[in-house]
């Protein structure tokens, strides 16, 4: 007596057909996978940016960030430091406003480096708690390096770095766990105002609030009272001062959509070829009683199989791409990929749906095959 084994099912037929031409199946799956890679990798990067932005807003338990209203990008904000301090002093819920100037500098061989200007006398409110080596700034000729930047520059406490032609001594190295900050350099505020030619200006004020203050309500009140301010309570309000995250979200969608449409067309091409090659076999299926609907289901199932394979490959490659991007010297100061189930689910739904859609035309063609003509087909 022969051994057992499971019954033939449409799913088993699908798998057999997919492994029948492994190279073609793999390349088609890769075509779908490119779109999935785009969704997974870009989403991880954007999610990382959002996470880092949110962490920066609430650094050291701060509650709000104040920027100049009506700006296109956060780094373009220009607040008059003294005027802003005076106004903040009128708001009882604000315990302290930490002035900070943001600027991009070339530091040693690093072409883009986020520089944060902080007042030496504000030491107790700053990230000095995150110092992992050395001490806080004591003079305008000293700097603090974030841990990522310190590693990139291969500089530590006591070393000298050059900004432009001026030497600065590294007083300390800090680590916050937020990639924006850990890739930055902290310079005294007066010195950065001088380097950036922004005398008396700050980019933002990080506000430390009274324990019972409601940051969202307070932000609304502050904006009503001082219309020249944009006050941000969390990352979801960040588009008041910077559209970068929203643009990145849109870009993810656009790139992913184009890539997946191309993937869908590749599926169409492959399945069309497959149907043509198997005209006689499809004719046999029809001749032994398979309905046109059954043939359609078989072809669509095969396309969905390719989509699922592409999804798996794309998810793995997407994570690899995101992590590799974050390791590059130019990007590791800014990118810290983060993962969430939502982009994977979105990729799964879109990849499977577009693969099925790509099979519609070939499946329709297959369902129209006349068994008599197919059996005459050589």
């Amino acid at each position, binding site marked *: 007596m*022969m051994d057992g084994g499971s*019954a*033939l099912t449409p799913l*088993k037929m699908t798998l057999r057909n997919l492994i029948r031409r492994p190279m073609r199946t793999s390349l088609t799956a890769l075509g779908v996978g490119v779109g999935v890679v785009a969704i997974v990798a870009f989403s991880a990067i954007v999610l990382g940016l959002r996470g880092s932005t949110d962490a920066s807003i609430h650094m050291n338990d701060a509650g709000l960030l104040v920027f100049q209203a009506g700006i296109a990008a956060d780094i373009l904000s220009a607040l008059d430091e003294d005027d802003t301090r005076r106004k903040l002093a009128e708001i009882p819920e604000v315990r302290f406003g930490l002035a900070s100037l943001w600027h991009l500098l070339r530091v040693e061989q690093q072409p883009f480096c986020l520089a944060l200007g902080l007042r030496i006398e504000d030491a107790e409110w700053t990230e000095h708690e995150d110092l992992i080596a050395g001490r806080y700034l004591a003079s305008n000729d000293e700097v603090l390096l974030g841990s990522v930047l310190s590693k990139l520059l291969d500089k530590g406490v006591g070393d000298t770095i050059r900004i432009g032609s001026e030497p600065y001594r590294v007083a300390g190295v800090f680590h916050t766990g937020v990639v924006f900050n850990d890739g930055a350099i902290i310079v005294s505020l007066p010195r950065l105002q001088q380097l950036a030619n922004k005398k008396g200006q700050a980019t933002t004020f990080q506000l430390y609030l009274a324990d019972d203050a409601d940051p969202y309500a307070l932000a609304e009140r502050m904006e009503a009272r001082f219309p020249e301010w944009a006050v941000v309570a969390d990352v979801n309000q960040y588009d008041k001062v910077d559209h970068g995250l929203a643009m990145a979200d849109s870009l993810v969608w656009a790139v992913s959509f184009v890539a997946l449409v191309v993937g869908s067309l590749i599926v169409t091409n492959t399945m069309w070829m497959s149907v043509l090659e198997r005209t006689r076999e499809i004719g046999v*299926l029809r*001749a*032994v*009683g398979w309905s046109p609907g059954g043939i359609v289901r078989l072809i669509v199932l095969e396309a969905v199989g390719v989509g699922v394979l592409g999804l798996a490959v794309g998810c793995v490659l997407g994570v690899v791409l995101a992590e590799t991007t974050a390791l590059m010297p130019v990007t590791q100061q800014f990118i810290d990929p983060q993962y969430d189930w939502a982009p994977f689910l979105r990729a799964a739904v879109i990849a499977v749906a577009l693969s099925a859609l790509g099979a519609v035309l070939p499946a329709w063609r297959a369902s129209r095959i006349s068994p008599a003509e197919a*059996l005459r087909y050589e």
Partner: protein
Amino acid sequence: MNDPPDRNVMVSTRGLVRHFEGGRVRAVDGVDLEVAAGESVAICGPSGCGKTTLLNLIAGIERADAGTLSVGGFRLTGRSDGAPDELRRSVVGLVFQLHNLLPNLTALENVQIPMIAAGLAPRLRHERGVSLLDRIGLAARAHARPPMLSGGERQRVAIARAMANEPPLLLADEPTGALDSRNGQRLLDLLSQLQRDTHTTLIIVTHDAAVASRADRTIQMLDGRIV
């Protein structure tokens, strides 16, 4: 509408016509035929006389241009619904001159293909497939794919596939045409035995007089007509 089932008549045609190339080729040209249930009939004639087209019409894989055709209670002329599909699922089993097995499936899996269309449960499909292969003496070759089978074995698997849904009518188009005489004889023995055991109606197309002589009745065709 289907005809009320007549338990004695399996196939009935009246003035059946099938043209090709806009009417220039009259493959089947006014055929009247009646085949009783349980009967074996051989359709003979030279190449191009319309034997295969007539068989395809009976199987529901060709559509008639004129006339009436009723198979196992299914009236196939004058309708455009899924009746032919249902006919092939439940009434007709087809054996082709070439085995037409799916090359990426095993013998056992090939036998199960019609059962999927008929909606049989997976367990029953498997059990019946095993039983059919056992019956045709290929139980040991159940997991071999067609390229690993001999010509005679492939054709026997094709017969098992045709019998998968236990159809009351078996149609065979030159089933021994691609086999040597020894394997051809063995295949005919198998067909005859299966027909006797299951009381199946058998219509076999052949141009081989020896094959035709095994049938209860022989019909001669010439230029699309029964002569």
